[in-house]
């Protein structure tokens, strides 16, 4: 109970001083968002291949507050259903405000092949509401991911989000939906320590290089620290708390110009009968 209280206290403080930038995909709680090769957890719009690794069906919610601007905050929901043939995921993310808002939903299918290879495909529906025209504009696009365990300690991951570079045509302008290519690795240095590294490239944007360590202090407590370099170097720190079937996650990142972003997530895993 004391652990839970501490966690909630930290969450409240963090969320009160929140901030972040505008991306389409919500962040994951892997260190520095270097999640493409990370199959330990599943979360919203993460590499769909990671869905193949889940052992129990899961539900989760996530709140990401960017740069203390509530209009930029992302509210996500995700659910993952485990079964023998294919694991199925349903995810949704909402951000924006009354005059402009975005809804991203997806359905994912993933298969784990002998725990050495995971393949996932997700189909996303993205819609934008613009009050000026009182209309929603929408597009469909896929997301494909792979995680390969090339040795017991090294995994490599790949994910592509909107590879065909779908766009949304508004009344006067065309909105480019980010088309992102990600490659990364997860190196299990020991049972307690993991190193993750990832590079992302948005076709119409900059490269992002992210890396960091995840350290399991106790079975129930993990701390994470790392950084990513896009236009600026952004340090990241966070931790996760596992309480039986619940997992609580907190991540913070400090952008040198725009300030702090905090993300909190709660995940519930169903026990196997």
């Amino acid at each position, binding site marked *: 109970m004391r652990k839970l209280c501490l966690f909630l206290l930290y969450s409240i403080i963090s969320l009160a001083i929140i901030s972040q930038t505008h991306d389409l995909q919500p962040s994951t709680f892997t260190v520095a968002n270097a999640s493409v090769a990370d199959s330990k957890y599943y979360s919203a719009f993460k590499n769909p291949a990671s869905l193949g690794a889940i052992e129990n069906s899961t539900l989760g919610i996530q709140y990401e507050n960017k740069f203390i601007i509530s209009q930029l905050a992302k509210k996500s929901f995700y659910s993952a259903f485990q079964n023998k043939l294919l694991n199925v995921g349903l995810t949704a993310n909402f951000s924006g405000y009354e005059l402009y808002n975005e809804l991203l939903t997806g359905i994912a299918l993933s298969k784990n*092949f*002998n725990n*050495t*290879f995971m*393949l996932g495909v997700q189909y996303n529906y993205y819609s934008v509401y613009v009050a000026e025209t009182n209309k929603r504009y929408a597009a469909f696009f896929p997301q*494909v991911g*792979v995680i*390969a365990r*090339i*040795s017991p300690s090294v995994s*490599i991951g*790949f994910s*592509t989000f909107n*590879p*065909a*570079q779908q766009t949304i045509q508004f009344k006067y302008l065309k909105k480019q939906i980010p*088309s992102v*290519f990600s*490659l990364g690795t997860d190196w299990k240095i020991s049972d307690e320590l993991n190193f993750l590294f990832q*590079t992302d*490239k948005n*076709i*119409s944007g900059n*490269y992002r290089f992210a890396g960091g360590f995840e350290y399991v202090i106790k079975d129930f407590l993990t701390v994470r620290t790392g950084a990513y370099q896009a236009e600026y170097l952004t340090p990241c720190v966070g931790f996760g708390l596992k309480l039986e079937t619940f997992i609580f996650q907190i991540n913070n990142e400090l952008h040198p110009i725009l300030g702090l972003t905090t993300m909190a997530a709660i995940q519930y895993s169903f026990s196997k009968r």
Partner: protein
Amino acid sequence: MLIILTLRSQAQTSIQTIDEIINEIFEQYAAETEETIDYESFYNDLVSLSENPLNLNNTTREELEKLPFLTDIQIENIQAYIYKNKKLSTIYELQLIDGLDMTDVRRMLPFVKIGDNNINNDKLYMNEVFKYGKSDIFMRYDKVVEQKKGYSKSIDAQGNANAAYYGSPYYNALKYSFNYKNRIQFGTNMEKDAGEQFWGSTHKGYDFYSFYFQGNNVGKMKTLVVGNYRASFGQGLVFNSGFGSSKSSYTLNVISRNNGLKKFSSTNETSFFRGAGTTISVGKTDVSVFYSNKKQDADTLNGSFNSFYLTGLHRTDSEIKKKHSVGMQTFGLHTTTNFGIARLGFTVAHTLLSDTLKPEIEPYSTFYFRGLRQTTAGIDYRIRLSTFNIFGESAMTNNKGFATVNGVLFSPTSTVSLIMLWRYYSPTYDTFYANAFSENTRTNNESGVYIGTEIRPFRKWKMAAYVDSYRFPWLKYGVNAPSTGQDYLLHAEFAPKRNVLMNWRLKYEQKQRNNSKSTIYTVENYSKGSLRYQLLFNSGKFSTKNLIEISYTDSLNQHPSVGFAASQDISYTFEKIPLRIDLRCLLFDAPNYDNRFYLYEKDILYAFSIPMIYRKGMRYYLNLKYEADKNWSFWFKIAQTVYGDMRKSIGSGNEEIQGNKKTDMRFMLSYRF
């Protein structure tokens, strides 16, 4: 025993088809070159070999040279081992031979066997030829999904709606081939390129037809070729219509090999001879004579033409006008004599054109061949002295153009091999069929020294490197002054586990070219570098490949620029159905043409892609192979490139496509009986 078990377990876990092994070899062979290499011939040669593997206990050096991934030293070591131990008892003994690693052995396995007798010397019986010979029929269709400008109709002055291209946007090829134990091979090819008419005012049927026949050890003839064929001798200074010796990460393989007369079974419409030829053994001497008479495409005017038109495309009025407008006759003779440790050869070629070749008079083309007839003769040699292998060829044309290429390959220890090659091709040496080791696409106007090495410094590691320093003593296209250049390559390969392989390749070149911003003719230095990392992982039915490549270019008039490409490949072979799928997603960002990438991609049978990747975008493909039964096979590929640089169109002229997407589809069906 441990080695045998290791190799056996590798053979079980690394499930690779012959197609994949051939692709892997070709990829490494062709990845460094920007020239188009005839993949069909390369593929056909190796497939024929896989169907009739070499008996290692009764094979010759020339036969082993058909395996392009083996170095001369490795061939030497294989022969020395067999000589010393009388014979190989099992294929797994290959692991014990100096200089052969697991990758080499794995690549050799489909093409070799262990036996006692050489059946190739058996008598030929016609009833057996047709009873046991294998026939294959292939049908292929290609199409670009988006419409190109050449197919859209416009109204002419008479009010008629016409398109620039006469034909449909489908490519179609039909092939038949027959093979009896690599001794009797024949076949025919028919092809229509996209945009060429199949039936109408310009064509009645296919645009290109070919026939070939090759017989080996037929009566007194070592080889007999009829129809379309290739001829390669010596180091390629006089004849090499096969693959030229080029720079690759096989840094020791710059010696021209796989010589002789060979069938030409490709659908390539230009680089072959058409006629007949034979090779006869007389004691220690092999004599090859051949004659070719074929029509080439060119833009002729008043009995002369500027250059050959080599695309093989006949889609528009102007392209159709060029078709088969110049006759080209070639007489060739080659003799080679073995003197134990040495081999000496002599080659002569005489070419006669029906129209006079008159290249446009430009400073760079001052020394290009002009005229109706040309004779070229050359002498080639190879000498083996201890661990040294000395080789070379010198040749001269009737207008006193001179060329020579000489080299030495040696291996001081089983873990280190070195090669040094010097070439000098005078500006006046401009002959039709030369294709020797060079930086230029033409084998002329060049001198240089190439030094290559291959080292196995530690277990599981292999390193290769080369340095090539060259000079062009006269002007060349795009360079209005004598110029120089240097190429460097460092390739490292590491196999930490039997199913994981990674390699790094660092390449750098410095050259000169015209200074586009100068008002007077001056040249500028420019440099290009690239760093590539590849990780290959094979897990039974699955295999993945990750690639990251960064390119860098710098020149006087252009800011330094960096290009980036990364790809993910996945292949899966289904367990219960005879289906294999290959998927790739590639991201590329090459801001300048100099940053362009050449990245191999999997394809349907007989198609081999190393597309040039340039600008910014993504490319992805799906490749399927379905083997319905032992007779029927089916291939399908769909690939799409989506550019992310806000462009409105792709390509230019009649090939222009509106929008930022280009989708290629290919389909192939084969039947074996």
